[in-house]
């Protein structure tokens, strides 16, 4: 009798816990705004809001192992399959040609932020300075604590891909990878490595931190390339 009661108690508690968890997630999803901008078309004909995404008004902190946010300690190394590897500090990065761009970013967990505004340096400009060899087919973004993310060369050198140091005109907030992070708007946001330390150009592909943990190697939001 006692054992039966224990089992009933366990099942009831588990059921209540499951319902609370599910509703908790549901309440959060329902709270997202319904914005007509999501149905607008991009120049390439795709909708701004990729399938399976919901709109949020702000970047959501998604965790990650924080690196050193100190601008004084920052160094960005550009190396690998290049003829002129170099390292630049924060002041050096600010001295390079700056671009400010507005772009949409898409997190693999299902949220999208439209019109996020970033200031920084194009990866294409960094690659040009490093004189990337023709043999380089991938860019590997290397960040704090061994985090890496791999991006095919053509996509890494797209004009909207950058290393950013400002978000809406302000320094990048602590949860979002200061002092400098990568921005790769057309791939899921885990490719946009926070606490960026280096860009390594590589001959062969090297799946990164999440790619080796079951996430998709390419991460196109419009193809819903979430899992590998």
């Amino acid at each position, binding site marked *: 009798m006692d054992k039966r009661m224990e089992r009933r108690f366990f099942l009831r508690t588990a059921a209540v816990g499951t319902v609370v968890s599910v509703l908790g997630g549901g309440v959060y999803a329902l709270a997202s705004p319904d914005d007509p901008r999501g149905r607008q078309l991009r120049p390439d004909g795709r909708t701004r809001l990729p399938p399976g995404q919901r709109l949020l008004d702000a970047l959501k902190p998604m965790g990650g*192992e*924080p690196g050193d946010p100190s*601008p004084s300690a920052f160094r960005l190394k550009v190396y690998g399959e290049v003829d002129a590897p170099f390292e630049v500090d924060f002041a050096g990065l600010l001295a390079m040609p700056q671009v400010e761009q507005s772009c949409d970013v898409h997190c693999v967990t299902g949220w999208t932020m439209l019109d996020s505004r970033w200031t920084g340096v194009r990866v294409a400009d960094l690659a040009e300075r490093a004189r990337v060899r023709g043999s380089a087919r991938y860019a590997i973004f290397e960040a704090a604590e061994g985090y890496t993310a791999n991006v095919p060369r053509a996509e890494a050198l797209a004009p909207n891909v950058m290393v950013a140091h400002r978000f809406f005109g302000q*320094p990048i*907030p*602590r*949860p979002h990878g200061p002092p400098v992070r990568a921005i790769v708007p057309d791939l899921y946001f885990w490719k946009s490595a926070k606490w960026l330390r280096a860009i390594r150009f590589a001959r062969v592909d090297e799946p990164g931190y999440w790619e080796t943990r079951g996430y998709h190697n390419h991460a196109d939001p419009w193809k819903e390339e979430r899992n590998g």
Partner: protein
Amino acid sequence: MGEGPPAGAGAGRGGGRGAVRGALRAVHRDLGHLAVGLTLVYAASGLAVNHIADWDPSFRSFDRTHDLGGPIEGDDAAIARSVAARLGVVGTPKDVYRAGPEQLDVVYERRTLHVNPVSGRVVDEGQEPRFLLRAANWLHLNRGKKAWRYVADAYAAGLIVLAGSGMFLVGGRRGLFGRGGLLVLVGAAVPIAYVAWSGGP
């Protein structure tokens, strides 16, 4: 995992089979006790990380803006000291960096003060680690030292032994050839059915 009869108990009833079952119980019991700590770590972290879409599982973020009422005089170090004193921030900054005439970043271990010395506006933002979850997630996501991999491997192997020994703890109609077997099949069917239903990887 519960307290069972001592190893060898039941040998009189079932002969060799009873002795094996007794040994399995001893292994299961001791391994179960050993696994409690790591199971709590991985289970709590698993729940936390599974819901990463809804929250930052490791940190609580804050962001406050203060208006200190006009220009702040002095060199960078003096400005940093003055702002910290007026906001009640204790500790020594790890970095004071002048990014421009209207931006002085004062970086502490867990927070950064973005100071505009001209206007006196200060953005105080940072992250506080979540109690226990921060460490649990750090272990779970294997961002600790490489040695942790061996601990995690040993734990995973231990779980396999626990699952295997658990199947043979009880005989009869509640055992593997009765209700226990049915539950094993149901448990195994869940991932198989999900892969079939979802189309798999």
